[in-house]
């Protein structure tokens, strides 16, 4: 191979067709092991079921439909594009920063360590004070709740297996916050000595309440025909060595126009972009396709750059009055 992967799908199919040794799958062993697990599960279910029934009869709970999780950050059409509904407090040492992503590709508040396999802690909120049911995992397995406490309030670890509250490292902690709303932490690649203690401490530091997320730019009025689609503030950045990077995805006459901001030299310049630098920041307008008429009307990418004021690398100078 010369290193070319013009069609990755075809290359992967070719790789999967590579000559292979005979398969060693032992179906009889799979069935025997599976049967043993089923017997254990049945015994456990009967025991726990009896205990749960006794507890349920003693204190019949008010049955209400289980709430759906809500994102902890949303996109706003107002001057502040990102509205966070909760905030992290204390975070463990490896975490390099907290980012916010809101738009059609998913909303999340994400605390990250640097590196592809660095720790990730995602914060989500539930809409009210109803305790969320464990529900099912993506593989269809019933979630199991292992009770915990956060600041003395009810909490549980959500796992496949009651004997492993940390769920094999794909960790879920749900708890009731001080104001009554339920929240969730989803963490993985968390390489710390005591993940349970660390996540309980992270949960205890979370505060619930709306606040606009300050950003490092001001756009002097959204041009006619433009619409805000998505905002992603990555901290640390996905690529490069800077402290953060911001991507503002706009739609101009239905065509994509992206505004990228990052500390000077901290992130690679996006392809097909027109860039400038000021106040220690790089600013690029990327048009990946035909130039929309509404962008041409204000002088093309350069005209949009001229409408943007950069506020510098010091986050204390950033603003929540981003658009207008």
């Amino acid at each position, binding site marked *: 191979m010369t*290193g070319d*992967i013009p*069609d990755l799908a075809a290359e992967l*199919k070719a790789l999967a067709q590579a000559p292979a040794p005979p398969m060693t799958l*032992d179906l009889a062993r799979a*069935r025997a092991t*599976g049967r043993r697990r089923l017997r254990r599960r*049945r015994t456990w279910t009967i025991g726990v079921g009896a205990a749960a029934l006794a507890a349920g009869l003693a204190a019949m709970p008010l049955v209400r439909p289980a709430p759906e999780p809500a994102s902890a950050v949303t996109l706003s059409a107002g001057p502040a594009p990102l509205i966070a509904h909760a905030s992290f407090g204390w975070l463990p040492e490896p975490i390099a920063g907290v980012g916010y992503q809101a738009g059609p590709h998913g909303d999340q508040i994400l605390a990250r360590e640097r590196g592809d396999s660095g720790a990730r802690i995602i914060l989500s909120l539930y809409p009210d004070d109803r305790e969320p049911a464990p529900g099912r995992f993506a*593989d269809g397995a019933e979630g199991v709740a292992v009770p915990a406490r956060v600041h003395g309030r009810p909490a549980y670890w959500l796992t496949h297996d009651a004997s492993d509250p940390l769920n094999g490292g794909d960790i879920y902690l749900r708890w009731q916050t001080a104001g009554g709303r339920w929240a969730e932490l989803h963490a993985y690649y968390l390489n710390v000595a005591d993940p349970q203690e660390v996540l309980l401490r992270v949960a205890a530091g979370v505060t619930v309440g709306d606040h606009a997320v300050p950003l490092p730019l001001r756009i002097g009025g959204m041009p006619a025909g433009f619409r805000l689609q998505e905002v992603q503030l990555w901290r640390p950045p996905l690529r490069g060595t800077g402290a953060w990077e911001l991507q503002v995805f706009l739609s101009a006459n239905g065509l994509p126009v992206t505004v990228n901001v990052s500390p000077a030299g901290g992130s690679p310049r996006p392809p097909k972009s027109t860039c400038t630098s000021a106040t220690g920041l790089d600013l690029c307008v990327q048009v990946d396709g035909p130039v929309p008429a509404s962008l041409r009307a204000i002088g093309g990418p350069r005209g949009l750059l001229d409408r943007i004021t950069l506020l510098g690398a010091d986050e204390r100078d950033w603003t929540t009055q981003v658009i207008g």
Partner: protein
Amino acid sequence: MGGSPARDAEFTEYVTAKALWLRKVAYLLCGDWHAADDLVQATVTKLYTNWHRAGRADNVDGYARTTLLNTFLAERRAPWARLIVLRGTHDDVADHEGDVDAALDLRAALAALPPRQRATVVLRYFCDLSVEEAARTLGCSTGNVKSQTARGIDTLRRLLRTRPVASPEEYRA
């Protein structure tokens, strides 16, 4: 509970038909045929345990694929997995012409990706899943799938010193 002849027959028929497909996905995830076989063994054992659910699923293949992915990721998260070094690259694959060299380059590049990125790339480009389907399989947001895919492709491109890789949708267009 468990072990009824009808259930066993149904399960055996399904796994017999799909084992090679599961093995291919597992090989792309593990980069090694022996590890792939171990992963398929663990997956079909779980599948048997949950066959009452899998057998009723609208999409049994999707259920099996999700089980495989979750088993792979859970194993990679376990502390011992960090110590695993892939076995020698040529011990189980005949040394053929250029195509095999190409495959080996790609295999090494895939192995360099962190497990979640590798899983995302395999789901999107080999299993041909949409962003939404991949997100459901991995139990994460679509934004997360997009960012994992972007980083995975970027790393592959860098390792293979190649031109940009188009999305599966662009190939289909």
